[in-house]
């Protein structure tokens, strides 16, 4: 729900507490944010960097961590000719500080109490907000009961974010999520999974049937989101059950 009235959103100083390389092109920053008010899975925050000459650049990033986690985590994919991501996903070191504001966004969010079935469809680093949902689900005993399925499209196996953690989640004891991968630009030897772009046939095979009224979240580059959302509607899923979030070249 949208809300009124609330306090003006303020910029806070975040300190990089930990840095973790996820893939050759993406890095997770674990942040200390004093007085962080907490967030819902799927929300993002704005980052503001200020150069010595006063020039400022702002970017919006999805939060990767669960609401239950101690720290706020962002996973940032490096766009080589970008303005901000080469720093955040490359040069940044522990102890660096920059401003953040948030959490922001309320449309692309899921709380364990919302239940399921939950169908998450991610393209590339569109996995980040969906990962926050899966981590939240794993941390919340009530949410763990909801049927949850993730369909992740990536260029190649080495480009899959959080690969080990996804494997642990899928192998978990209590109501593990079902996780399906499709690789669009090459597969490792012995690959038996999908190896093409997400299409209606794949969605029908992987997703819960429309009659079960799943809550659906789709995040990825704009053309990916458009084609997946169209295919879902074509399969008979309710348009208002499909939550989409598009990302694209925002100047990096």
């Amino acid at each position, binding site marked *: *729900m*949208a*809300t*009124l*009235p*609330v*306090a*003006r*959103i*303020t910029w806070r100083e975040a300190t990089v507490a930990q840095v973790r390389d996820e893939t050759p092109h993406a890095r997770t920053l674990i942040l200390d944010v004093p007085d962080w*008010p*907490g*967030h*819902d899975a799927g*929300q*993002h925050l*704005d980052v503001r960097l200020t150069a010595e000459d006063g020039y400022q650049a*702002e970017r*919006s990033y999805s939060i990767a961590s669960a*609401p239950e986690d101690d720290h706020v985590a962002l996973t940032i994919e490096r766009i080589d000719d970008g303005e901000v991501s080469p720093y955040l996903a490359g040069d940044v070191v522990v102890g660096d500080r920059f401003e953040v*504001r*948030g*959490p*922001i*966004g*309320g*449309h*692309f969010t899921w709380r364990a109490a919302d239940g399921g079935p939950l169908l998450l469809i991610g393209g590339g680093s569109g996995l980040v907000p969906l990962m926050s949902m899966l981590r939240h689900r794993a941390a919340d005993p009530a949410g763990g009961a909801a049927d949850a399925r993730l369909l992740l499209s990536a260029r190649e196996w080495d480009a899959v974010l959080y690969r080990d953690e996804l494997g642990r989640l899928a192998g978990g004891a209590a109501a593990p999520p079902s996780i399906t991968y499709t690789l669009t630009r090459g597969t490792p030897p012995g690959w038996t999974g999908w190896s093409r772009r997400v299409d209606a046939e794949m969605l029908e095979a992987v997703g819960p049937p429309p009659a079960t009224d799943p809550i659906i979240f789709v995040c990825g*580059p*704009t*053309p990916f989101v*458009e084609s997946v959302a169209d295919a879902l509607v074509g399969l008979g899923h309710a348009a208002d059950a499909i*939550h*989409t*979030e*598009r*990302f*694209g*070249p*925002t100047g990096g």
Partner: protein
Amino acid sequence: MPTDPDRLVLDGNALAGLLASIFGGAEMTAAARGCGSCGQRHPLGEHRLYRGAGLVLRCPGCGDVALTVVADEARGVREVRFAGRWSVAASVSSRGE
């Protein structure tokens, strides 16, 4: 890619921070907008965002302009124009501040 203009289109979720700053901190991406042109209702987060010299948010149903934001650098303000009927809940229900 630069050759495909569709890739530059985002959605209203990308405006969450800006809208919150305009609306005194309120979370606006889940607010439904009734379009005065086609009559459909869609959350602002599902509207299409086009970015150029300014920002233009359009109805996903018909493309009608819902919101434009243009920065007026000389005066240090943002000129904001809205169209349509926006439904905003009166009570606080979000953990967003």
